């Protein structure tokens, strides 16, 4: 008691070390994890898009449906959708101050990202399996 208090956190909070956000560094870490994954994946997808631009439908279907390209696209979409979900969450938390609007916007963010991810993945799987 006589010692000056250096840390205002309770012992339980210190043990949990989750900080003021109550979720630790998970958000930060997952943002970085997906960003590292997205560097090679984005380069691959950019080249793919530009090189497929002038080709006809049959060629595009054949290339997009081939296993290495389809797997690359699926990995890109998975990482991109998670990355942009985290990123848009931060933007909303920074600029939307009304609690109800913030809640609705964060919900819409999740719906949008899941819908984009599922639709794009479904299209690639459809092309791959030739349904």
């Amino acid at each position, binding site marked *: 008691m006589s010692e000056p208090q250096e840390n205002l956190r309770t012992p339980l909070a210190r043990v949990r070390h989750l900080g003021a956000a109550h979720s630790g560094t998970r958000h930060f870490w997952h943002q970085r994890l997906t960003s590292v994954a997205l560097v090679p994946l984005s380069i691959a997808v950019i080249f793919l898009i*530009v090189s497929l*631009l002038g080709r006809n439908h049959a060629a*595009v279907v054949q290339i997009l449906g081939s296993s290495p390209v389809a797997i690359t696209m699926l990995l890109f979409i998975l990482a991109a*959708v998670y990355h*942009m979900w985290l990123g848009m969450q931060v933007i909303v938390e920074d600029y939307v101050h009304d609690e109800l609007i913030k809640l609705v916007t964060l919900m819409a963010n999740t719906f949008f990202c899941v819908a*984009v991810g599922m639709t794009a993945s479904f*299209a690639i799987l459809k092309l791959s399996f030739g349904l």
Partner: protein
Amino acid sequence: MTDINSSRVKHRPLSPHLQIYKPMLTMMMSIVHRITGGALYFGTLLLVWWLTAAAAGPNAYADVQWFMQTLLGRLILFGYTWALIHHMLGGIRHLIWDVGYGFGPNEREWLTVATLVGSVGLTVLLWLFGYLTMGVR
């Protein structure tokens, strides 16, 4: 007591907002990083359209191809690739900062200029490659 408290609340200094600062390149690039991130967020709809059209069949794909050949389509696609490359290079810059390097005044300016020059240069090179391969085929 309440008077003292309310006046203290009134005169509490506020954190200065953007208009206080002299615009600096690092600051502008930070803003552009967020803007390109937001643009790419909605740009994924373009990717979804492209993929679902390819999966749907030749007619749906012909619509995408027609739109991408218009000036507007080309501009959107060019902008999308630039935004993606810029956001990627900006992200790499952030990763360098995350591991503790590049914080010196010259280093951070250099990194910022490299991001901008790199993104514009690489986008132009990419489209040169795109048009050249299109011509060859």
